[in-house]
């Protein structure tokens, strides 16, 4: 972590107020065997500082992780601990390994080296307490399911094969749809929804599963400003309830304004810390390399010619039929052409 600007400037432990945990989460900060001066205010956990401590506090913990596809390495030397109740944005250029990092946490791919723990167990073992939402491009929107069907899928893993959805499940689905303001679309086929409505429905599916950890791949990409605000309000509320929310995003403005913490990656971790410290021109130019222009003191403009998304996130930009494919999404494609 020698090049970590947060660790380098002495700000390794950053405290913020209001880091209280919701009572419904079984968590005892004293469960690990060493003392800490002020657990309740602890917000940042730097793995290099005290790995045992970081691991005990973390909902998501990665140690010396490298990963990739085939013989192509996507991530290396990743050490990160994400504390419960965090609202974390993962930023970085296209192909930096953001989706790979999320898939590691979701247990969808295994690390080549190192360990990935989620909720105190190897990734994938606590799957029913984790909700993962893939990129919109990876979903077949012509699939014959309605909004209500998709959200009900969030309840399937807990139901198991032999039980049918009950009134409790239907209430949970209705409540989740209400939260994302999509209750009136319950009977609508998903293909006739707008891009923003599609992201709302998938967040509702995650909410209906009542998870402790949300892993969201590009949840606010290609949505209008209103939807972005609504979705971020919801995620913020979940984090306040003690849930851990980790989302990849290309939208640095959104990361700066709406997330507490930011993880900047480009195959390795460039910086991890509070949004205000990570999103400075120095860190960003090292994260984005030549694709970033620094204008004046702190204004930054992304010049990511390879990317398909507008970095502002304020424009609608859909990919009908899954035509788009980059290095990461093609390996995750579910269909054989």
């Amino acid at each position, binding site marked *: 972590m020698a090049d970590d600007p947060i660790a380098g400037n002495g700000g390794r432990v950053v405290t913020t107020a209001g880091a209280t945990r919701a009572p419904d989460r079984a968590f005892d900060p004293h469960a690990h065997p060493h003392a800490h001066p002020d657990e309740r205010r602890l917000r940042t956990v730097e793995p290099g500082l005290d790995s045992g401590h970081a691991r005990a506090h973390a909902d998501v913990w990665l140690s010396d992780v490298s990963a990739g596809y085939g013989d192509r390495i996507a991530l290396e030397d990743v050490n990160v601990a994400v504390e419960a109740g965090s609202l974390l944005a993962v930023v970085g250029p296209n192909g930096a390994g953001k989706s790979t990092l999320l898939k590691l946490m979701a247990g969808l791919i295994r690390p080549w080296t190192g360990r990935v723990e989620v909720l105190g167990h190897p990734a994938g073992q606590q799957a029913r307490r984790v909700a*993962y939402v893939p990129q919109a491009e990876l979903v077949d929107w012509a699939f014959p*399911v309605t909004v209500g*069907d998709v959200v009900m899928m969030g309840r399937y893993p807990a139901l198991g094969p032999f039980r049918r959805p009950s009134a409790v499940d239907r209430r949970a689905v209705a409540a989740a749809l209400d939260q994302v303001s999509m209750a009136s679309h319950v009977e609508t*086929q998903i293909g006739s929804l707008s891009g923003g409505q599609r992201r709302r429905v998938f967040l509702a599916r995650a909410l209906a*599963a009542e998870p402790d950890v949300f892993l969201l791949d590009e949840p606010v990409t290609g949505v209008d400003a209103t939807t972005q605000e609504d979705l971020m309000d919801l995620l913020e509320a979940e984090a306040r309830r003690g849930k851990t929310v980790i989302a990849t995003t290309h939208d640095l403005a959104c990361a700066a304004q709406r997330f507490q913490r930011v993880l900047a990656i480009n195959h390795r971790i460039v910086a991890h810390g509070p949004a205000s410290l990570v999103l400075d021109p120095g860190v960003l130019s090292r994260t984005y390399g030549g694709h970033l222009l620094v204008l004046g003191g702190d204004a930054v403009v992304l010049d990511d010619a390879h990317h398909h998304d507008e970095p502002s996130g304020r424009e609608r930009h859909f990919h009908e039929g899954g035509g788009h494919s980059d290095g990461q999404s093609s390996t995750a494609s579910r269909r054989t052409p």
Partner: protein
Amino acid sequence: MIDLLMTPLEHAFFLRALAAAIIVGTVCAVVGTYVVLKGLAFIGDAISHAAFPGVVVAFLVHGPYLLGAGVAAVATALSIGVVSRRARIRTDTAIGVLFAGTFALGIFLFSTINGYVADLFSFLFGYLLSTSVDDLISLTILAGLVLGAVAVLWKELLYATFDPLGASASGLRVDWLESIFLALVALTIVISLQAVGIILVVAMLVTPAATAQLLVVRFGRMMALAIAVGIASSVVGLYLSYWVDAASGATIVLVETGAFLGALALGPRTGLLGRRRPAAVAEAQAQQA
């Protein structure tokens, strides 16, 4: 007209064939709905051809053909995944290799048998009217097995088909579901062999579901409509083949193909006649705009 419909029913062999056609039409439509949504038509074709050497071996050792076909089909279905993972080649390449290789093995074994073997030949093209009582019992048991498995796992299969990443991350064993599903496809093909034969079985699997997909946009309705199309085509096709004295399997597939083309021409979304759309779709599109 009534006579035309009732006369064949006086023959026990026709009644048995009708029962088999209805069973096959139902099971194919149920499993075919997932096959169409997963985009696995090619795998269905491969598995059906792979059943051929199993049938020939069963014939050579005088064993039950359903067992031979079942073992060969399930083994091929499960090895497609293993071969593509181990060899790190694309799935369609692995299917192509296994598809041709197993079918060649069947023809090789077949060609070593002296003389013309009508029973075996009928497996290539199907012969519903030769359905025996024993066949019917086996079909019913296997169909019950497949439909039972889908009844238990329908929602898990649906989630894993729609969003394999989300389903896997939330704790569903998507890899197991995939293997179970391929085994169900293999069993469905075995059930259908006598009705339509190895060459045409993929049509039974895919066409009713594809027809339904043109007409409705909900999963449950799609499966229900596929079953209706599958059963109706099987019954109509069987009668037609009886009246004009044609091959029953081919006639059933032709009726299904006709239903598909009819849906394509008249369907609400693809229809060539007018641009009428279901109210729900139109409403949603109005809101989107």
